[in-house]
């Protein structure tokens, strides 16, 4: 089966600046895929090339097998994009905006589906409001609705929850997860790493236009993120030979970073051997933020 997204040696140069310096990537159908990276890493450029908004200097991109340049009509029908910026046309209402968007894809008489999308995104009460009158969060929902009016199997979300309040964010994620469960492929870029960790099955990390890490979220967490342990001991020093990075040590209270659970086992063993009593022990599970920071530091 052809992948949902197939990216081969994509480069984008703006004069001497290489926004993308050769990206190869496949996203399988039905995946919830995360594209992470610091500002300027090339995430939005890559998404823009997938969407046909920007042309690659070299390389090619296919959406469900359709080339985004040579077979652009088919590729664009298969793709829904939620842009990062809160853009809207101030002349029209929410319903008009969605009707137009469906019409641009050659779809007429879509009112039933538009009503359903508005219902799922809690936009029904605002259907006849002018876009200018909506709050930022509501405008963000309309952007999501616009990306869905032509029922694309692949949906790209570029920072979909930026500036959205917590309640709205949760509602948006419920809806997007529901789409993924129904078989839609989701590609997400976000700076909220906890969201990526929670929803994405696989993640690519970009830095300076290159993919510097690509794996399942679980493998990334296991590979790059150690355990952070808060430990309070009777003694004032750690036993000899502990395999840990000491982040802080103050009057018997230590913050350690351990490589993995085996290192934790080894630490506990050494404490028992040294007859040091543990007063308090707190283990922070690995998180994507730490993985991200480590990967970015490794690539510096």
């Amino acid at each position: 089966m052809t992948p949902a997204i197939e990216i081969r040696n994509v480069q984008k140069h703006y004069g001497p600046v290489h926004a993308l310096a050769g990206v190869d990537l496949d996203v399988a159908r039905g995946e919830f895929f995360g594209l992470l990276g610091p500002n300027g890493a090339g995430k939005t450029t890559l998404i823009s090339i997938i969407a046909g908004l920007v042309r690659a200097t070299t390389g090619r991109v296919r959406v469900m097998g359709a080339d985004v340049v040579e077979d652009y009509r088919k590729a664009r029908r298969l793709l829904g994009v939620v842009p990062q910026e809160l853009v809207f046309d101030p002349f029209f209402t929410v319903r008009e905006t969605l009707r137009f968007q469906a019409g641009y894809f050659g779809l007429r008489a879509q009112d039933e589906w538009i009503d359903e999308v508005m219902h799922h995104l809690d936009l029904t009460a605002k259907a006849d409001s002018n876009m200018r009158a909506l709050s930022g969060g509501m405008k963000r929902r309309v952007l999501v609705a616009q990306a869905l009016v032509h029922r694309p199997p692949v949906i790209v979300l570029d920072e979909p929850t930026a500036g959205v309040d917590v309640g709205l964010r949760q509602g948006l994620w419920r809806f997007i997860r529901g789409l993924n469960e129904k078989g839609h492929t989701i590609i997400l870029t976000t700076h909220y790493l906890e969201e990526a960790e929670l929803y994405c099955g696989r993640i690519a990390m970009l830095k300076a236009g290159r993919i510097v890490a690509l794996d399942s979220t679980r493998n990334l967490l296991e590979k790059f993120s150690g355990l952070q342990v808060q430990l309070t001991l009777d003694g004032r020093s750690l036993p000899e030979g502990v395999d840990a990075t000491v982040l802080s040590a103050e009057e018997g209270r230590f913050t350690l970073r351990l490589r993995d659970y085996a290192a934790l086992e080894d630490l506990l063993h050494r404490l028992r051997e040294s007859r040091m009593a543990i007063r308090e022990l707190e283990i922070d599970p690995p998180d994507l933020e730490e993985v991200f920071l480590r990967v970015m530091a490794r690539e510096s």
Partner: protein
Amino acid sequence: MSGFPTLFYKELLRFWKVSFQTVAAPVLTALLYLLVFTHALEGRMRVYDVPYTAFLLPGLVMMSVLQNSFANSSSSLIQSKISGNLIFMLLPPISHVELFCAYVLASMVRGITVGLGVLAVTAWFVELPLAAPAWAIAFALAGAAILGALGLLAGIWADKFDQIAAFQSFIILPLTFLSGVFYSIHSLPAFWQGISHLNPFFYMIDGFRYGFFGVSDFPPAASLAVVAVSLLALSATSLALLKSGYKLRG
């Protein structure tokens, strides 16, 4: 199905929703021109053996058609570019030809609507013959299409509103005013008559006027040929830029 009908309809609705600004205001402006010139010059001169007011009116109508056709495509595109909502037209499978047709046709509709509005509000005090209506229609449609395409070009090229305003003030307005809207070029010295022949707006207005009086400064068939070549050249340039994605797709 194509996205063209929706984009065309959206462009029509866009100017119609603000029709006080896009239709009523230019009609009023043309009416004021006519009243002022009529007051100042009526009875003092005749051109083509018709009263000055009658001579002036087709020129004002065509000027309104041209200026509003340009304003429609240029302002719509630059607004979409600056506000960022152009993305909604770039993401769907709309071809460069469909985009061109939707913008230019909507511009033509606005230009012709304003032109008809000017004719309608002046009908009660200016008696206008209609010697060759097919010529008037042909020049009105071709002129509106040319300015719609030129507005599209300006919208593609411009990055700011003031660049569009400069285009209007330094190119469209002088070319319109110096095209024979207010006078027959036969009243100019030979040198300026020659210069006028380099102005494509002259052929549009002169040809349009021929449709009313059956008289013109230049043979209407030759004017139509100049207008047709201008339209083809501007359309080809606009289409080439749209296809290349110049200033629209990165």
